């Protein structure tokens, strides 16, 4: 406990500095995000679905895939010179390492969002109508959820043969349930659907914007706690 704050800060700063120096992952994330958004924009012209629906979806997909890139990197840097062992040798709790890396990934996604949101607004005819705070809140919840699972599994997936694609399927399948309320929340914020939806179907299952935010918060809380508790088992021998 004594080492918590100091090591948390140290790992966080070290990761951010290393990434800013390497200038590797952030540019890749941004380019990937932009490409996804543009491809979806082009595709949406061909379909009869209005582009305002595809916009929020494009945002989530870009966020998911950029998040995967960031998470993979967060443990790839520890593999280079076996630095992960240096971390395990130190009297740092495994949970602290997890929280620090989680925080780094969330920050990376935030930086990514700052750049990708203007791109989404450029590409799709969307408007938020002064609901900016809600948008930021929903995106933050999404960031935390996306990073929570990826940070845990990135630590172990480094050791497998298939590496990147394996992390993708793990994270996407576990996050799939969270995407339902997440999509609902964004669709409401961008005015595509009303704040309440009734009837049958997946969106009605969520019901309302508040319920969507509630579900996302619950997912985040459950997954962060579970991954935090299990992280020690994942990296120690």
């Amino acid at each position, binding site marked *: 406990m004594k080492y918590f704050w100091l090591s948390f800060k140290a790992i966080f700063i070290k990761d951010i500095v290393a990434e800013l120096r390497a200038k590797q992952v952030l540019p890749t994330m941004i380019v990937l995000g932009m490409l996804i958004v543009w491809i979806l924009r082009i595709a949406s012209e061909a379909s009869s679905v209005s582009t305002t629906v595809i916009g929020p979806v494009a945002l989530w997909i870009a966020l998911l895939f950029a998040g995967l890139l960031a998470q993979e990197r967060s443990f790839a840097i520890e593999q280079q010179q076996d630095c992960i062992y240096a971390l395990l040798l130190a009297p740092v709790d495994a949970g602290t390492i997890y929280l620090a890396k989680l925080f780094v990934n969330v920050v990376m996604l935030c930086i990514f969002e700052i750049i990708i949101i203007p791109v989404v607004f450029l590409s799709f005819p969307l408007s938020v109508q002064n609901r900016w705070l809600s948008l930021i809140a929903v995106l933050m919840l999404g960031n935390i959820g996306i990073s929570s699972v990826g940070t845990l599994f990135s630590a*172990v997936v480094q050791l497998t043969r298939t590496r990147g694609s394996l992390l993708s399927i793990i994270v996407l399948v576990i996050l799939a349930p969270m995407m*339902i309320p997440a999509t609902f929340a964004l669709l409401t914020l961008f005015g595509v659907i009303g704040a309440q939806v009734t009837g049958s179907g*997946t969106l*009605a299952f969520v019901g309302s914007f508040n319920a969507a935010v509630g579900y996302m918060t619950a997912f985040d809380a459950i997954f962060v706690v*579970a991954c935090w508790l299990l992280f020690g088992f994942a990296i120690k021998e």
Partner: protein
Amino acid sequence: MRRILLLLAFVLLLASMWMALTLGQITPVKRNTLYAHVPSSVCALLCFVVVLVGSIGYLYSAKPTWDLIAAASAEVGALFATMLNVTGMIFSRAEWNIWWTPSPRLITSAILWFLYVVYLILRASLPRSQHLRARVCAVFGIIAFLDVPMVFISARFMPDIHRPSFSFDSSWQTAALVLSMAAIALLAAVLIWLRTDLLKNTAKLEKESFC
């Protein structure tokens, strides 16, 4: 012993079908898939519980048997999740003329299937040595289980194209359903048992057994 149980399971299953069709007189006959669909869904969920128990057991005690139980259960569970989805699609095509629709129950059943499949892929991709595979799969098993309750909740509480409950015309049909439930549960248990032993023997033969 296990052969007898397997035989018993098959016999029970056939008996339930016969009961439903003749004594219960369900019509149209296409509703027969129900007797495979409902028990499959229960089994698919229960198998995941066994995966969870095996995962927690392994992380707690580091004994390989727990991990093998989890793996066997994941394989059997994948089988039942496949059956669940396929029989569901057959039934809905027959009954309502659509193969699939994005309703909560169907989506969460699909997610259950994906969770099983990703577990199996993860297991296959990890190197067999150093307890690593067991540890990682156990961690995945526990995290994945957090998604499973939704399958259950969405079935029971949400309005959906999927009928959450149905009434039977005669008590024979209810009996048939119960019988088929018992049959498939028995089948699942025996399969898990068989598979665990097979995995144990494979590990012993290859002399890797958790190196």
